[in-house]
């Protein structure tokens, strides 16, 4: 594997995204959250095509334009310049969220602050009194898209587990997460709780258990 400069063992940001991309079926309609999830689009497995939806009103989103080629009225949900692929369409927000809430988007890949063993997700607010709450489309995505993948570091910067028994941050949705891709492992959310599916290279099962805040099957 390609060595990452920040972690001696485990998966890099790109490797987490590439691993998640492997689990997305060919031809899926996909919505990617801002940050690491966006990397999925660069790491699509050979032979597969995903159609990208961005909730501000575009289906068939293409890669970022070359410098100087940006169209100020063609952006993604992260407010970055994008392009369209042949066959793309534009629509207003009610149609865009009908695609989401109506179950028409197949897979959504999001970041997380915390994921609980029952699939609860917290990714929009720390709940601190001075923090300005900002939710965007996260609650609609988790409520409407059948398959929610989360890509996240296994622990916070201060070493606290992000996979927990119960979220302490305000929830984005209840019981919504299907699978989690961390720098250490791939973990499924099952009816019985977290289930370890795969270890990143050089990572031991013991380490994953130690850094997970809930039992691991």
């Amino acid at each position, binding site marked *: 594997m390609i060595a990452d400069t920040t972690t001696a063992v485990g998966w890099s940001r790109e490797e987490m995204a590439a691993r998640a991309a492997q689990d997305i079926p060919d031809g899926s309609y996909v919505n990617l959250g801002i940050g690491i999830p966006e990397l999925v689009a660069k790491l699509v497995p050979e032979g597969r095509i995903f159609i990208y939806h*961005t*909730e*501000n*009103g*575009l289906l068939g989103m293409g890669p970022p334009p070359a410098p100087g080629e940006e*169209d*100020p*009225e*063609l*952006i993604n949900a992260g*407010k970055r310049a994008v392009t*369209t692929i042949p066959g793309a369409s*534009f*629509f*207003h*927000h*009610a149609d*865009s*969220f009908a695609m*989401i*809430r109506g179950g028409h988007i197949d897979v959504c890949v999001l970041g997380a602050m915390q994921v609980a063993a029952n699939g*609860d997700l917290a990714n929009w*607010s720390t*709940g601190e009194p*001075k923090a*300005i*709450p*900002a*939710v*965007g*489309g*996260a*609650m*609609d995505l988790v*409520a*409407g898209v059948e398959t929610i993948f989360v890509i996240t570091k296994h622990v916070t910067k201060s070493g606290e587990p992000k996979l927990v028994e119960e979220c302490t941050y*305000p*929830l*984005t*949705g*209840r019981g919504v997460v299907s699978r989690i891709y961390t720098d250490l492992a791939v973990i499924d959310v099952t009816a019985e709780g977290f289930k370890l599916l795969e270890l990143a290279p050089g990572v031991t099962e013991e380490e994953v258990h130690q850094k997970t805040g809930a039992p691991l099957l």
Partner: protein
Amino acid sequence: MINKAVGSVEEAVSFITDGAVLMIGGFGEVGSPIELIHALIDQGTKNLTAINNNTGNGEVGLAALIGNGQVSKMICSYPRSSHSKVFPELYKAGEIELELVPQGTLAERIRAGGAGIPGFYTPSSVGTPLAEGKEVREFDGRQYVMERGLKADFALIKCEVADRMGNLTYNKTARNFSPLMCMAAETTIVQARYIVEPGEIDPEHVVTPGIFVDHIVQVAEPVIESQLIAAGRSYP
């Protein structure tokens, strides 16, 4: 002949009065009717409730309207971004009210308001702080929260092409909330890059039918908000 075109942005916003509920199109700067907003700043209309996905950037456009003390309440889904500082400061100082709404719920509330539907049930936000105090009802074994339709006194909209009857087309992702807001406002005021004669827009291509539009003003070369911010500009 119906002719909804007016001569200036000043005239276009002259209908807006203190205390009005105002929907403003745009997702961030894209689709934001910045010339109409600046005219409203010049007019000095106060105590507005503003409905937009965000709260503006830098010190121009919507952020400048808020910074000028003309907005007492914001209804939005994402009140912060990397270039948003005016709203956060006022919010932290307790000088502006915020109603936070999930983005899809905001869109549907506006759509419902314009479609004569006073309330609806959505799965978004169930079990979260944003559903607190709202009716939750079970349909087919799943929980949904009731949300109210949202109407406004005025909508400020940016479009690409308008004909004199008020039919509109938009440009790419600048469409976002605007067609919904045109429907939900009692009076819809539009700035258009081009104004054409009726019949010049193919009826198959009309995005907002003219029945939802009241006043149109041509702004042939709208400024680009991020360019103003990059140049360190503020308004007024």
